[in-house]
């Protein structure tokens, strides 16, 4: 066990609009921070000499992915992501790959947007953003 480079290790799978997980790792060069986060609720009373808190429900969080735009049919990012805004599906994030026992972070996410864009002298790129619906699962690959 140890530290791991992203390249060749990190796997990202996203439900397509038919509810089938598609591995998009080959088309992603950046994914935002994704993990568990709870709300902090202040329960400080007159009797306390310091501020008190309790954990609330899991906070909603947004995660985005981005990379080079690619029009590969059916399994490419444009084919998969263009029809997702407004739908809720599973995202699975494996920081060091999908070997049995490897860390798996997953949840149900609402796709907020998909943005293809191009700028002169650059590659055509895309970005997609997802908002957590419910709670994150921290588990392991099987």
């Amino acid at each position: 066990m140890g530290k791991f480079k992203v390249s060749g290790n990190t796997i990202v799978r996203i439900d397509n609009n038919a509810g089938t997980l598609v591995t998009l790792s080959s088309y992603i060069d950046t994914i935002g921070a994704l993990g568990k986060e709870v709300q902090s609720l202040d329960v400080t009373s007159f009797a306390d000499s310091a501020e008190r808190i309790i954990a609330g429900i899991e906070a909603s969080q947004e995660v985005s992915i981005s990379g080079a735009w690619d029009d590969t049919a059916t399994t490419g990012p444009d084919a998969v992501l263009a029809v997702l805004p407004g739908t809720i599906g599973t995202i699975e994030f494996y920081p060091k790959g999908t070997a049995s026992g490897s860390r798996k972070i997953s949840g149900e996410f609402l796709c907020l947007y998909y943005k293809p864009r191009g700028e002169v002298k650059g590659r055509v790129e895309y970005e997609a953003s997802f908002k957590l619906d419910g709670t994150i699962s921290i588990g392991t690959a099987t």
Partner: protein
Amino acid sequence: MAKKKSSDLAVYYGGYDFGTALTRVELTLGINALDPTSLSDAGERATGGLRADAVALTGLFDDINSADAAAAALIPTGTAVLSVLFGQATGDIAYSGTAFFLAAKNPASIGELVRQEVEIKLDQSLDRGMHYAKLAKAGTGAANSGTLDNTALTTAGGVGYIHVLSVTSGTVGAALQDSATGTLWADIPGARVTGSAGTSVKVSFTGTLNQYTKFTMEGTGIGTALGILVRS
């Protein structure tokens, strides 16, 4: 199928080619997120609201580019078709929709090129489809795009977009056509426009759309046009 560079992109609005004026284009296919979280939920919830697509264009002013001409001709007239092409070949991806041309402004400051700020607001959402390579017709006779083999027919209809980009003489007709065999062709109902330069149309059709599709230009005139087809 592949990744693309900036010169693979093309932007058309209302029958005008914006590509030479633009330095950046960004499309947003998005929704408004609504919060349905209730007391029984262990985590915040999210659900989709209204569709909220958008387009952002920036560029450089050029008095011979058609973005400037389009601004002069189209800003007061209502909606026209916006199409953004990701590639120049028949079968490449294109996003299209109808949109208002709200504003075109040319900010300038010392030491910089005069810029072109274009504000176009989408009416409803963008459609993802495939386009046919831009046709140039020289005189009598027809000009035809390559044929797209869509593997099978669909009974769910679709949407067609046509831009007539230039007509330098005579009359030019432009149409999206389909065929069950790839040899006998007929217009997709309503998907034909006979017009002058700076014309764009959106046509929705229901029912059967055959396996093979193409874009054609006919008539006596000389001109250029572009067709885009979205199969449902």
